[in-house]
């Protein structure tokens, strides 16, 4: 896990035709250090509407930390983040995080039934005006090859892959604008991976100003699902 790397950020591919639109999410001059070890500095990242950006880098290069920083779950050490053109400080955190949802690699689900876990985010004040989209939940489950009974399962009986599916489903049902996905298909079989990728692609196409960031160890998956790769690599 811990490789003592000095890291820089380099865009491997730039997609010029997207750079004209106002970015959905933009990070400027991010720096992150754990004690003396600088993971990355002067990191620039810009998400254009509809764009899928992959974060690549070896273990310990701070991919997860970058996603957590973008989700404002980590105290920011230096730099700025803009969402829809407004700096992070102008957003109330719950409202911001209702738009920009981070999905951890090993999602934690509350005790109880799957349906209760899916409904939980709709009890938050930030979604007071919205009802839980049960029909949509059923449709998405169907695409993942699960039936109604899955909703009544207890979350502590789920496998690692199933938990990942539930967490993904939960995030998609809240209809965010930006998804920050940390190894979203790490413990899934090929069939489920394909289904999840399809769900994310559908979500992205539903509205023009959506965008997502991925991390994955699977290089092929990254290339398949991203328009651009940002590399957190040692400068060597």
């Amino acid at each position, binding site marked *: 896990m811990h490789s003592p790397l000095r890291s820089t950020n380099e865009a491997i591919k730039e997609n010029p035709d997207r750079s004209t639109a106002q970015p959905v999410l933009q990070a400027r001059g991010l720096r992150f250090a754990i004690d003396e070890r600088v993971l990355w500095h002067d990191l620039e990242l810009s998400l254009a509407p509809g764009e899928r950006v992959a974060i690549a880098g070896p273990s310990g290069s701070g991919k997860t930390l970058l996603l957590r920083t973008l989700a*404002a779950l980590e105290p920011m050490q230096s730099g700025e983040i803009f969402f829809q053109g407004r700096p992070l400080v102008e957003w109330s955190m719950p409202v911001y*995080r209702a738009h920009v949802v981070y999905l951890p690699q090993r999602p934690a*689900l509350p005790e109880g039934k799957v349906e209760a876990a899916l409904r939980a985010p709709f009890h938050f004040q930030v979604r007071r005006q919205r009802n839980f989209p049960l029909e949509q939940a059923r449709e998405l489950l169907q695409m993942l090859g699960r039936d109604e009974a899955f909703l009544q399962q207890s979350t502590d009986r789920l496998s690692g892959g199933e938990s990942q599916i539930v967490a993904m489903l939960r995030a998609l049902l809240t209809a965010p604008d930006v998804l920050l996905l940390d190894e979203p298909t790490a413990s899934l079989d090929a069939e489920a991976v394909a289904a999840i990728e399809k769900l994310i692609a559908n979500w992205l196409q539903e509205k023009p100003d959506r965008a997502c960031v991925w991390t994955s160890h699977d290089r092929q998956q990254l290339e398949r699902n991203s328009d651009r790769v940002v590399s957190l690599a040692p400068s060597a």
Partner: protein
Amino acid sequence: MNDQYINLDNWQLGVAALLILLNVAISLWLRLGLARSLLVASVRMAVQLLLVGFILEWVFALTTPLPVIGIGLVMTALASFSAVRRTRRRFPGVYWNSLLSTLGAAFLVTGAALSGIINVHPWFAPQYAIPLLGMVLGNLLTGVSLSLDRFMHGVARESGLIESDLALGATRWEAARPLIGEALRTGMIPTINAMMVMGVVSLPGMMTGQMLAGAAPAAAVRYQIVIMFMIASATALGTLAVILLAFRTLFNRQDQLCVSRLQTIERSQG
């Protein structure tokens, strides 16, 4: 009241000590390894109590409020300190949080009882103030300690669950509320249990003491009811305060969980 009261002289204390010596002998004979700690504990208990007897005699003779308040502050500081010492995790400022909550809850409730319920004259009368404060603190300490420990344990163990709520737009309060509720319940359990069985399973020490001193049971019981209400309300207030202060430290204004502020102590005390 005092005519029924039997004073114990040193000779009688010595005979009581024989009960312990009998146990020490049994332990030595069966090689239980308990003899040493039993002796140390007995001697400590006797010395501490004899000293407290002297001190209290001096304290009870006080006629000005400041020294009484001073003694109360020292007792409160010690209680709040040992409440934190018993927890397995710490965060910066935890001792101050404990002191503030213990002080606020204990002084508020004891003060209200002295001047508003029991109507002691003068209001600081040490014979009432010090024992009542002591009983409140003893129970408050347990509540603060249990609830703090439960809260910090929950934050450390369920950080994934808390953060996945935060990541989906929960406020820090929404994300922490289940843990806060659980911590407060844990802190109140001993007090609620004690009230549940009081008089049925257990005869509380204060009440027993009053009756030994010759008070009528019906009168002693009334004091016990008041003290239990004091203990329960002080414990509820103190645990609520300390958990809210801990919440403010472990969850910042940006609705972030600052789990790195928690440090696990290798060896727990007590």
